[in-house]
């Protein structure tokens, strides 16, 4: 498939807009329409609906994620938690070349809502250069987030602790998946992807952080798991278990 071909790209735009419409209930579609209108107003070059909504895998903790290229729209007072990633075109391409997984995610899995050709150029570049996100960035981010997460779990603030641990487990899963040539999808899909990779403890901890209400002990175990895994090479971490989580059946 020639991504530089105008007809091929127009078909992707049609397909993605239909996918975005299918994946959003009316209240989310209304927010997206506002974001699109404001993005066009500020002269943005492209808008991508990304994350769990693009993948039709929203959960109770999902944000509504967008990637705007070439502008920063003001979106007023939304009635959803919105993540608006804004890059100018040069930064977008620079991040792509440096292996930023969020940019790669937007290019390959996002629902493209409009594009003046900047995303098409990015997709053509990645296809032509066999581009792949830099896994080492994710492990560095996880290691950097460990200290604060550990402290917030100890602080007695359960809501904040759960959110931080969920984020930490997600960073760790993304690292291990990328390091083993698996592209990490949306957050709710990561636990199944991690399980397929053999990361049993990580998959279970991540799933429970999204769908259950783990207590402090379990959150602390999640932090210890990440500390253990990120102290190993990706190859070793894939097969590693946290000793305290292993049963006699193991």
């Amino acid at each position, binding site marked *: 498939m020639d991504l530089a071909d105008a007809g091929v790209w127009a078909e992707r735009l049609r397909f993605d807009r239909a996918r975005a419409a299918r994946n959003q209930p009316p209240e989310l579609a209304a927010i997206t329409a506002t974001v699109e209108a404001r993005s066009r107003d500020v002269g943005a070059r492209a808008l991508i609906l990304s994350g769990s909504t693009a993948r039709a895998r929203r959960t109770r903790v999902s944000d509504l994620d967008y990637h705007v290229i070439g502008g920063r729209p003001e979106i007023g007072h939304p009635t959803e938690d919105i993540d608006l990633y804004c890059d100018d075109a040069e930064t977008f391409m620079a991040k792509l070349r440096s292996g930023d997984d969020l940019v790669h995610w937007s290019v390959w899995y996002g629902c493209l809502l409009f594009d003046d050709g900047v995303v098409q150029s990015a997709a053509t570049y990645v296809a032509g250069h066999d581009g792949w996100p830099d896994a080492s*960035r994710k492990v560095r981010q996880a290691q950097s987030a460990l200290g604060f997460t550990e402290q917030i779990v100890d602080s*007695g603030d359960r809501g904040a602790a759960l959110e931080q641990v969920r984020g930490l487990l997600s960073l760790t899963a993304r690292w291990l998946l990328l390091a083993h040539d698996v592209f990490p999808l949306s957050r709710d899909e990561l636990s199944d992807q991690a399980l397929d990779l053999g990361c049993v403890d990580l998959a279970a901890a991540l799933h429970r952080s999204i769908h259950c209400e783990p207590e402090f002990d379990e959150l602390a175990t999640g932090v210890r798991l990440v500390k253990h895994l990120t102290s190993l090479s990706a190859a070793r971490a894939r097969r590693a278990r946290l000793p305290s989580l292993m049963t006699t059946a193991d």
Partner: protein
Amino acid sequence: MSPKPKVQVAREHLTKAQDEAAGGDPRDALQWGFASLEAAIDAIAAARGIAIDEKHWKRTEAARSLHATGVLPKDLSNLHRSLNEARKAVFYDGEDPDLGAVSIEDVLSDVEDAVVAAEAEAT
């Protein structure tokens, strides 16, 4: 461990934020400051029957309405939203905090107003 009352958590998080700011760590100062502001809003919202449901946007709206009703001395909704964006960039992307022209000390002064209001609400 059991969850602590939000008003207590708000003060303890603020103290950590101030310590980190004084120690020259703007990343942790920002993250603790945001956590403190969220806990303070949660505490006041719970006392006044405002549903938060662990949603950041509802806290932003609560910060606006609590100022409109005179509970908070300032409208901290924009601060809440910008801190939320900044702390996500710190946590997920490892970026340095971008607070624009505002200093971390100014941010924490506003957060302290919310913590004081939460403590007043609790007494």
